[in-house]
């Protein structure tokens, strides 16, 4: 009676994609649901800001320390700023923020929707002819998609600041040297690309969380399972998509450089 696991994977993926498209297609309801979207933006964005900043600060600090030690061997400690900025803007900023969000928001989003599902609240909405995708899923997906990139901006800035502090205090790099090289770390296109990545990760995590929530069955155990699956799948997808996107970006950049 049990379905082959691959079939389950395909069915889950299909459901998630359809759910995401349906939620995005319901953007016309966004104005009607603005209160819900704002509420979710508060939970996803404002409440996650401290933890995201704390994470990024320490990551920036450790990163500066590690690269600084290596650069010092070649007497190039000044280059720390360049490395930190390029890594933060293109890689660490978007996906470390995505990690923090999945852990803090994705898991609880799946658990919340999963609880609604097993306590028949989703059914109740459906019976009242209130589309649960519009009422529950859409506000979460939109809020996540907006706040993911916003948090990435903050996280990246804080991460760079953390790097600068360590470079200044522990590595003895003058702040103006740090900034001088930092400017060369990223061009505007890199910044937009980083934000686009963050948007992709956010949509992906929100869709996975909502989809796992909506497919929950089997009481409290099922809710726990939905939450766990969300974290595992969303994190896996994030690193995987990140690799694909980075490869793609390099390819495009090379092509553009070749043309010019």
């Amino acid at each position, binding site marked *: 009676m049990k379905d082959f696991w691959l079939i389950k994977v395909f069915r889950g993926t299909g459901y998630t994609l359809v759910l995401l498209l349906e939620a995005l297609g319901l953007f016309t309801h966004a104005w009607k649901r603005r209160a819900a979207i704002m509420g979710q933006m508060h939970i996803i964005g404002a409440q996650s800001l401290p933890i995201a900043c704390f994470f990024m600060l320490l990551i920036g600090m450790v990163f500066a320390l590690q690269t600084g030690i290596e650069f010092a061997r070649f007497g190039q400690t000044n280059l720390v700023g360049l490395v930190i900025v390029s890594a933060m803007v293109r890689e660490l900023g978007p996906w470390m923020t995505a990690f923090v969000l999945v852990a803090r928001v994705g898991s609880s989003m799946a658990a919340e929707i999963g609880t*609604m599902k097993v*306590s028949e*609240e989703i*059914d*109740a909405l459906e019976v*009242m*002819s209130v589309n649960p995708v519009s009422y529950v899923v859409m506000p979460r997906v939109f809020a996540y998609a907006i706040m993911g990139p916003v948090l990435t901006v903050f996280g990246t800035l804080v991460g760079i600041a953390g790097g600068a502090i360590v470079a200044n205090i522990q590595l003895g790099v003058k702040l103006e040297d740090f900034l001088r090289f930092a400017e060369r770390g990223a061009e505007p296109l890199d910044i937009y690309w980083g934000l686009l990545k963050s948007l992709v990760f956010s949509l992906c995590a929100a869709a996975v969380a909502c989809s796992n929530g909506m497919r929950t069955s089997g009481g409290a155990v099922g809710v726990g399972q939905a939450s766990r699956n969300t974290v595992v799948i969303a994190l896996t997808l994030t690193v995987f998509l990140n690799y694909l996107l980075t490869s793609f970006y390099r390819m495009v950049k090379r092509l553009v450089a070749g043309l010019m």
Partner: protein
Amino acid sequence: MAGTDTSQRKARVDPNKPVVEFIGVRKKLSGRMILDGLDFSVRRGETFVIIGYSGTGKSVSLRHMVGLMKPDEGSIRIDGDEITTMTQRELEVLRRKFGVLFQSGALIGWLNLFQNVELPLLEHTKMSKRKRAEVVQEKLELVNLWQDRDKFPSEISGGMKKRAGLARAIALDPQIVLYDEPSSGLDPVIAHEIDKLINRLRDSHGMTQIVVTHDMESAYTIASRIGMFYHGKMLQIGTPNEIRTSAVPEVQHFITGGREGAVSTRSDAAIQHGRAPGMLSQRTAEAIDAAADAAPTEQVYVLLEERPDDGTPAPAGAPSTTPELKPEAELESTQEHQTHEEKP
């Protein structure tokens, strides 16, 4: 606004036509026949009570009624409209006829009671804020919760959740209200309050109501008719009096809490193992069918669980009291097997 709506609708429709009709509905879930040829119909303005053992598919049949589940076979008609083939859009229109009280109330956790009752009005009407507040007040006062309107579902008791769920269910003055175990988990006084509410809605609003319960006292208080759900179909349908004096042993067994009457052997075996009687496992059913074809070699017999004539009230003392015997094949579990052999 909603009031004139219902009266117009009433004038148009034939009062004798059934509001809800199930015809030969079958549904298999995780390998088990949960609904197995379910036949019944509910008349306008009556309170139809469905009784039956827990975990046998009463909630599943309610979910079919509002199109949350589709049957594998058979036909379901609401006001004469076939709903099994309806599109999502058509179902949304259909569901406006229904109010549903779910087993746990199913209130939205982040809305307070006022907002919960207001939700269907916000979504489906263009009422002004003040008009909405009036309707919400009327419904919450009906269930005696107006003073608790600012509380959130997590702050109130189970009985209050159910009453609030009822207020929300009737916010749009539906024609048909479905209740899934409205009195389970409540103390007798509150449970009786809910029964009185159900009767009030029938008498003053003329609502058609379908109530799933296993509280017999409540069933006798509210029912126009009672249907006993057993092995995926209606074993007997009758007035409260007909059910009380039923000659069907399974019905007697249920309504007396197992003190009188009897159930089929396999149900009995299930009870011995602390499981719900009255649910047919697909594998066991197939085993029995197979055994009917094969030559009977074993000397063990079980009571055949399906009656030849379902849905209609069994005549007193008819087939039900003289059970048909069938040779038993390999039963699903050895545990059940042992129980049978212990029988004299």
